């Protein structure tokens, strides 16, 4: 396909497109629609290729990508020389540009790594040196006085900090969705609720799903927590994923004035510690815990985890504990036995794996995508001439940017933007309506929340839950069981 680009199909049920005729197969099937898989699909959409993105769950970004700490990292503390270090550094730049272009909310707050004891204080110069080796020369050690002037609500005992300018907060939901939206508008087919259960590697590969068989010349594994299991379907056993759970507490927006930077812990022998950071939605995040588990579905919170977080949060920012809690969630990072991303091409198999994308994958995603496309080309995929992607402009979910409920012109044109439905988050009827009719519509109320913030606020649906649900159902969506 060259001229007159077709918009991709988004399917959630029914038979998959028939790819059985010779030449009807997809050129590339990307498996896993997390932030990485969506970024890869978008990157591939620049080429005149037939591409599908398939996802086991009912929405994009349902795995690790929806439940992280939402930081756009500089990569100052990556292992120098690693693939991760390079992709995070490149990804940071690419994603910041992409955010500007598409309207993904980003706030460049800068981070401070707060030292609470002599040992941590002593570690700061070493971290500054590591940052320098990663190409970040702007870090600076702050004394206790300067730190307190910058962060007046810090608890007693902070001895100093390393300032890392450039660390930012970002909206992880919009990022994944922007990639997916742009990919679909540029011709990628997105098949949701479509778990690849078996693979029959060959020419073409056959991917077996409950909705039928997909044939593909090339396959990309972007299966996140299941990347090792998917590798096994192609006979590869290069690494094992260990889910590392991170529990997080989201505090009310009234806590936002308590903190100005991303407050990072100083990594030490006892692990990485918890951070306190504003979110682009105006809340304050406390977490994550770090627990290595066996269960790849264990995204529950625990009483011990929450108690530990509150204890640590109370030391970092005592006033935080007086504020109401808006939400609690847990995410699983994809740790492996190696200290780096596990990205590999298997040219003979016409297969590329992007695995072990641990706690920096959101930041690195555009660079991982470019890297994966290179690996595909190295494996023999003829990419074809580059062409421009379909433009996207995402609805703004960030508090630092104009929201529809305060936009007089928009309301004058369309009064639905003057009717607030979700009062806590100030989400208007117009925004919900548009999300329900968008390129990649939500398959559940949670998906709607990630597109609009509806029901994400302090009341968690006490006021708006029934109305939002009714709008969701009116739009023709089934009662969400998931």
């Amino acid at each position, binding site marked *: 396909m060259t001229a007159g680009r077709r918009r991709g199909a988004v399917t959630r049920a029914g038979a998959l497109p028939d790819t059985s005729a010779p030449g009807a197969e997809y050129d590339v099937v990307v498996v896993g629609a997390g932030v990485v898989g969506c970024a890869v699909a978008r990157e591939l959409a620049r080429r005149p290729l037939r591409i599908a993105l398939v996802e086991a769950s009912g929405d994009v970004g349902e795995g690790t990508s929806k439940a992280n700490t939402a930081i756009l990292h500089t990569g100052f503390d990556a292992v120098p020389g690693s693939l991760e270090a390079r992709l995070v550094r490149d990804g940071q730049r690419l994603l910041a540009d992409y955010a500007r272009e598409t309207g993904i909310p980003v706030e460049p707050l800068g981070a401070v790594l707060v030292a609470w004891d002599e040992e941590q204080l002593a570690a700061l110069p070493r971290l500054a040196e590591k940052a320098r080796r990663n190409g970040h020369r702007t870090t600076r050690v702050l004394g206790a006085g300067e730190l307190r002037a910058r962060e007046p609500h810090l608890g007693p005992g902070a001895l100093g900090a390393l300032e890392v300018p450039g660390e930012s907060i970002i909206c992880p939901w919009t990022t994944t969705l922007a990639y997916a939206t742009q990919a679909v508008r540029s011709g990628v087919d997105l098949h949701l609720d479509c778990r690849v259960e078996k693979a029959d590697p060959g020419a073409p590969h056959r991917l077996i799903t409950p909705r039928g068989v997909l044939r593909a010349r090339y396959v990309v594994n972007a299966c996140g927590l299941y990347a090792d299991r998917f590798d096994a379907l192609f006979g590869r056993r290069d690494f094992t994923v260990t889910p590392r759970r991170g529990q997080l507490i989201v505090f009310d927006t009234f806590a936002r004035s308590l903190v100005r930077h991303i407050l990072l812990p100083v990594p030490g022998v006892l692990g990485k510690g918890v951070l306190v950071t504003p979110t682009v939605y105006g809340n304050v995040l406390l977490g994550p815990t770090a627990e290595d588990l066996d269960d790849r579905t264990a995204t529950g919170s625990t*009483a011990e985890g929450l108690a530990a977080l509150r204890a640590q949060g109370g030391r970092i920012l005592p006033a935080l504990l007086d504020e109401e809690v808006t*939400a609690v969630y847990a995410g699983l990072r994809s740790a492996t036995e190696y200290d780096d991303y596990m990205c590999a091409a298997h040219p003979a198999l016409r297969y590329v794996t992007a695995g072990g994308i641990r706690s920096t994958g959101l930041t690195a995603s555009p660079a991982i995508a470019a890297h994966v496309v290179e690996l595909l080309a190295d494996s023999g995929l003829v990419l074809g001439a580059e062409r421009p992607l379909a433009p996207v402009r995402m609805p703004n979910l960030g508090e630092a940017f104009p929201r529809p409920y305060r936009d007089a012109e928009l309301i004058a044109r369309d009064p639905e933007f003057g009717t607030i439905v979700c009062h806590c988050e100030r989400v208007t009827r117009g925004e919900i309506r548009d999300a329900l009719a968008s390129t990649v519509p939500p398959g559940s109320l949670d998906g709607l929340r990630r597109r609009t913030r509806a029901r994400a606020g302090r009341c968690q*649906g006490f006021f708006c839950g029934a109305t939002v649900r009714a709008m969701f159902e009116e739009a023709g969506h089934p009662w969400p069981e998931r």
Partner: protein
Amino acid sequence: MAGAVNRTVDVLVVGAGPAGLAAAARLAAAGPYRIEVLEREQEAGGVPRHCFHGGFGLADFGRPLDGPAYARRLARAAMVAGAAVRTRVSAVGWSGPLTLDVTAPTGLERITARAVVLATGARERPRSARLVPGTRPAGVLTTGELQQSVHLYGVRRERLGRRAVVLGAEPVAQHAVRTLRGAGVEVVAMVTEQSRGPRRFGAVPPPPLLTGARVTELLGRGRLTGVGVSRLDGRSGVIRCDTVVFTGDWIPDHELAREGGVPLDPGTRGPAVDGSFRTGSAGVFAAGNVLRGVESAGAAAGEGRGVADAVLRHLAGAPWPLSGVPVTAAGALRWVAPNRIDEGAAGRAFLLRVREPLSRPLVEVSQDGRILHRSQLLGTAWPHRSVRLGAGWARRVDPAGGPVTVRIGS
């Protein structure tokens, strides 16, 4: 707010629940003032809109009504009296001490008033705010969401679930049970940390009651499959269910108050007021459940009428008290309201809430070590029900003295 229309009114009431509507009705009836009520929902009436049970209206209208009928009557009374009751209009912030920023389908407005009455009500703390751990499945509700789903949107059992657990045993929890049953959902347990549940449950049998017990975990992926429960005596287990309703545990909807810098009381978490419903910000009044969580609708409406009288005095030029002796809660008392003494307080009873059930407790009011009042309550004081304390002692408060302490003990 660029593009906003500037307007002025005499009194701007935020919230058309029982407190706001009752205030507006009396204010509009009392004089040639421009009274405007802002309501962010589609209909006026506040929480009673979705309370499809009796128990409303006796105090105000002299006849028993259900919630929606009561809401309609209150709204009609306010409008008939001449107040402008506007729905789908949200006050979203302040741009001056008595100027509110407003979003409506008709556009943005900036409304300046001579007096602002905050009557924004309360909400129930959801599961997250109560820090109940576990998974995040569908089927977890508050009473507010449950009632609206069933009564305003007609959601039935197929959608709600088959087996529900209700957390709490207070009146609100009983309404949740009734709503669930009415929708065809079996209520398999009521769980409360209190030592006692409801004595009576109308003509129908109450659901199995678990007292002295806490929900420790939510289970299930996608849809709720059960709740982990542990008893204070150490026993624990799992109740299978696909719906859980978190009831009671109210918190004032104090967002607008806080955003406007209106001082809050640490006990109630609502705006601190004196006996005339005056907050710490000149010209800003507060009444109803925003003051301290849920009392009955009739009580909120009563406060609405009370605040109207105070607003009228203010419009007539009464001075705004710059200070006033604070009233603080001590001992087993969670909060006391009102939170400051003024000359108007002498008539209006104080409300007290205990932390745990206390049988025949002793109440003591003191200032600077001087006892102003001491009495023993009859019966039991429950955490979910306010104890009323007459304010006769308030006349003996030294206006130049230290804080007044209300202490409760057994």
